């Protein structure tokens, strides 16, 4: 008898514990949902740039000149990603990207995907590709390079894609990812 009583007691305690955990989860859940919803709301029409390395999220925003964009803009960074660990995402309502903008994004976020949204649906998914030659996107870090002293479009060769390493067509200086500054 005593054994059965003790067993029941243990069962009750376990049940209560489980209930407490469940209650805690429920209490937390809506907040998390709301937060996510606030961070990355869906757009009716426009472009979503996904899988941006977290340190390049704001560079992408800069490339797309989102500061001056009149439509809806959502920028989120440090999001969990199965693919890349942590990622950034940029949603821009009412904007489609030019090939030049896609090229620029490829330089700072070589693994990014560009989703074209129409009527809340992904109409097209483009995987950006780091080009072999980057025209007029990167500023040369060499202060005595002719491109920083005369009106001339810059040109860089991609010598290594991961981690990104580029070489200036003019002064021949190599630059790593950390030195790359977008024009």
């Amino acid at each position: 008898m005593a054994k059965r009583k003790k067993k029941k007691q243990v069962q009750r305690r376990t049940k209560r514990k489980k209930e407490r955990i469940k209650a805690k989860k429920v209490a937390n859940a809506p907040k998390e949902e709301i937060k996510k919803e606030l961070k990355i709301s869906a757009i009716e029409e426009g472009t979503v740039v996904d899988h941006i390395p977290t340190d390049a999220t704001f560079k992408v925003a800069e490339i797309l000149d989102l500061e001056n964009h009149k439509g809806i803009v959502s920028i989120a960074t440090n999001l969990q990603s199965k693919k890349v660990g942590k990622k950034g995402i940029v949603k821009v309502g009412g904007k489609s990207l030019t090939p030049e903008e896609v090229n620029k994004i490829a330089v700072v976020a070589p693994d990014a995907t560009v989703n074209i949204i129409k009527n809340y649906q992904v109409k097209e998914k483009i995987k950006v590709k780091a080009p072999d030659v980057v025209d007029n996107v990167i500023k040369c870090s060499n202060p005595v390079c002719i491109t920083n002293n005369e009106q001339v479009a810059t040109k860089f060769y991609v010598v290594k894609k991961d981690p990104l390493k580029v070489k200036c067509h003019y002064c021949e200086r190599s630059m790593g990812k950390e030195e790359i500054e977008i024009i």
Partner: protein
Amino acid sequence: MFIYHDLLILFFSMDFKNKDIISINDFSKEELLYILRVVRQIEQKPKNNLLKGKILATLFFEASTRTRLSFMSAMEQLGGEIIGFSASSTTSIQKGESLWDTIKMTEQYADVIVMRHPLEGSARLAAEAASIPVINGGDGSNQHPTQTILDMYTILKIKGKLEDLHIGFVGDLKYGRTVHSLAIALSHFNPVFYFIAPDELQMPESYLDELFQRKVKYYKTSDLTRISKELDVLYVTRIQKERFPDPLEYEKFKDMYRIDGAFLQHVKKDLKIMHPLPRVSEIDKSVDNTSHAAYFEQAANGIPVRKALLALVLGKIK
């Protein structure tokens, strides 16, 4: 009489007409060997009127002695004419004219341009602006390809070959563009390199990476005497005072390596010493009269090298 590398005596022809000479990185091993063959040809059989009626524009936005004078002398010896300037203060640059416009204007007056400019990449831009060939006489601390070709030609003459040599570079390897370009150019010829400099003036990582990718064997050290017996050629460079904002730093390094009679006791009998000049105190005058000194011959090779390049880009030699 010196023996040339096998490939040099093979008959092959390349068309360099209208080609720009901007960076040593633009040339393949075969092209370099071809140029060296033409240099030998022109040195052995000078053709005095080869460039008669042609005009060379020497645009020297920065001071130069050897490069400018040897180009002028080379052009004169081949019967050509020279126009140009040797200080940008006397030109429209002072009025704010862009390099692009200066080149666009010059190409109307000349058949070939030789340019020295303090900004890196300026020669490449000039070549894009000009429809006539442009030869880079030095763009900042980036490239000086005609110096590299004359260095290669000197090695070929004094050692009889370019392949399998043990070559030491000593001095300012960090800023010395001659060292950077020569190391890359010689990487085609299975060399072993010894980079001798204090850590502060060692060869930049980007060049070492490039050599590593090209599977070139190299050693870094600050001790010249330790490896002196290994060397076939020692390329000495000046520690450049203008590179040191702190004069005390310069004092610390300026006499760190001194090539003198005592040093020559510990080298191979046939070691050759090169220097792009000007020298300050890194090579003692007593070395000049030894069989090791090759730096004046090196300077003299500037003439046939520049003659050959002018003739090639003007399409007068194929």
